């Protein structure tokens, strides 16, 4: 059966290490290998970084909710198990243009987060709401490799 874990945290960057540890354990238990687990943790970290930097404008005392959900084969596409992350905040709405990532030809700092999320996860959806933002990230086992070259 599906199961889930909900983390409620304040938007403080110092908590990211704690979240990464919990998520890596969760993702490994679902059955992803080490390389996939590392990449998936990075994708969620980038989503949280976006919330702190953009939705909350670097305010470190705002609420973020992260739901980690294991997807059973019956509830996932193509019969593969996987994971789904739902990240919710009460901050400013995101600019949809910035959620498409940027071309990587130009070497410059910044703007890599969304590119990494899209590169790693099978799907990434953003839904603005009356109270804030919701991001839904999903990855199934055995789909596209997390790390390329």
């Amino acid at each position, binding site marked *: 059966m599906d199961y889930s874990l909900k983390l409620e945290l304040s938007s403080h960057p110092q908590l990211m290490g704690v979240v990464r540890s919990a998520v890596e354990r969760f993702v490994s238990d679902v059955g992803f290998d080490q390389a996939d687990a590392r990449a998936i943790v*990075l994708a969620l970290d*980038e989503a949280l*970084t976006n919330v702190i930097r953009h939705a909350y404008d670097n305010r470190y005392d705002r609420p973020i909710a992260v739901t980690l959900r294991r997807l059973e084969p019956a509830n996932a596409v193509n019969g593969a198990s996987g994971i789904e992350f739902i990240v919710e905040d009460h901050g400013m709405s995101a600019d949809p243009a910035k959620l498409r990532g940027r071309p990587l030809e130009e070497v410059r*700092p910044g703007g890599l*987060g969304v*590119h990494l999320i899209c590169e*790693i996860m099978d799907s990434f959806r953003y839904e603005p709401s009356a109270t804030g933002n919701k991001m839904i990230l999903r990855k199934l086992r055995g789909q596209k490799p997390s790390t*390329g*070259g």
Partner: protein
Amino acid sequence: MHISTRQSGDATIVDVVGDIDLYNSPEVRKILLESLKEKRAPRVIMNLKGVKYIDSSGVASLVEGLKVSRTLNSRFILFGLSTAAREVLELSRLIKVFEVYANEEEALAAGV
């Protein structure tokens, strides 16, 4: 995360141990820019052996160091990339942009 610098000839070696993420990438950026801009080190070599995790804000600090070094005609070199750090630079399509060596000896010997 712990970050410190030491000298080896004309090279400034920046040793980093721990994760480089949103919380501590500003400190990495500060040390890099200090070495390149203020101390005018002709070569800044980053020891990433002890870095098990780096996110896009950490990568952005490295990119900024690289860009500043190019402006100042100095060198910005990385060595000791963990699997995780290499994967992030590959996913960012930046691995070939940096000068990367396996270990400190090779990094120091490069372009002397």
